């Protein structure tokens, strides 16, 4: 099979190229619309202070996991005061657990280790555990989290 249509003129080439360009733009725009249809709705981040307990409830050694507004946290007393850590491992998003014997946060997925202050000390995590703002109003403790 030889090359067919090798005698194409400049006029014909330009006209075909122009048509192809138009077709490309048209189909591209349609494809973009299809992709936009699939894109999830962008939600505006809204932060809210949520009451989690009173100061007298929290013992020095207590590390209790809790779920507030779809956010999983650990509330505990660290060396620098009351902290609310996100349980989401900063590596690839698994949930960390508190290992009482080792006094460390362990991520079971890829063996990431954080110390009591949330600092990443071993394994793949690239940064310390994320923190949420803790607000104290009188006796009550609020944690400021993102709500959907």
């Amino acid at each position, binding site marked *: 099979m030889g090359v067919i249509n090798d005698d194409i003129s400049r006029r014909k080439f330009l006209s075909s190229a122009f048509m192809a360009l138009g077709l490309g733009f048209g189909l591209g725009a349609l494809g973009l619309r299809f*992709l936009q249809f*699939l894109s*999830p709705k962008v939600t505006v981040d809204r932060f809210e202070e949520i009451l989690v307990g009173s100061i007298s409830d929290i013992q020095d050694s207590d590390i209790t996991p809790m779920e507030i507004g*779809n956010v999983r946290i650990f509330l505990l007393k660290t060396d620098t005061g009351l902290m609310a850590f996100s349980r989401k491992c900063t590596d690839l998003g*698994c*949930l960390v657990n508190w290992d009482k014997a080792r006094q460390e946060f362990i991520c*079971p997925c890829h063996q990431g280790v954080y110390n009591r202050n949330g600092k990443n000390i071993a394994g793949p995590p690239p940064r310390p555990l994320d923190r949420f703002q803790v607000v104290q109003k009188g006796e009550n403790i609020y944690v400021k989290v993102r709500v959907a």
Partner: protein
Amino acid sequence: METTIEEIKEKPLKDRIIDFIQKDVPDHLDSFSYCMGATPLIFFLVAAITGVLMTFYYIPYSEKAYESVKAITSEIYLGWFIRGLHKVSINLMIFTLFLHVVRVFITRAYKTPGELKWFFGVGLFFTTLAMGFTGYSLVYDQVSYWGMTVVMNMIAEIPIIGSPLAYLLRGGSEVSEITLLRLYDLHTKLLPLLLVLLIGGHIVTITVLGFAKIEGREGTHPFYPDHAMKVGLIAIGLLILMVNIVTIFPPTIGPMADPLEVASNVAPPWYFSAVYKWITIAPRQPALFGILIFSIVFLSYPFIDRFLTERGFNMERINIVFGAVAVLAFAALTLWNAL
């Protein structure tokens, strides 16, 4: 034998079909290492049929998915058998794909004019692995949920396109019921379509470009009946093997997905455990870039081979060393993870 288009057009349909199925194939296809490409296809057909059957019972909704898989496994008549066949065929498909890739790599069958075959093949390889991942996610047990979470975050680490792609696949910033539906759609519609197109492309290129030539084995035999009968025999043998494996090791299901607790014994399927071990032991960014670079080298290998051959490297030897190192590394990481 030269035939012009006019001659072919004049032949009756029956003769044309006979000509087509009696096309000569080279004699080296008789040895088992050279017909490894047909075996994944056989497994794919079994997986496709059993997969379609299971869609009649599976419910892609986070609150029902696990229950429906459980029902397929333990309540529906022969459900365990269908799900077992699906699982076993996919596992064997991936295993034989590995063997096929290694054989093609060692014998350098991707050399000109075989590049296109290689590209279709690499596409098939990655699409099959994507099928494995999405399939595992649908079970919606602990492995599914945390596997989805981890893989989506890995995708998000790909430069530039990673973040939007992960967002699109998840249908948001967290794994949710939208994610399950999207992965279900990928697993049962888009990826199978892609797989069928790639298989078609792979086979058409082989038909047009011909099989790789092996020095010293130039003989040929017709595709039908010689080769077709042999492949048929292999298919029957593999079916017997699959049925046996399913009956001896019926499918099981892990604990239900729990977004609040990572189970300590969560482990990916064997074909992902080498990668899983790799990202656990190596520092995160280099590990993921390693995977990305490996994939790019893998895809463009025919060009790398040509580039190095032109500069006087003995690619036959290099490929044997590379292949052996890759297989050993894969086996070592897999075994290490199993310990």
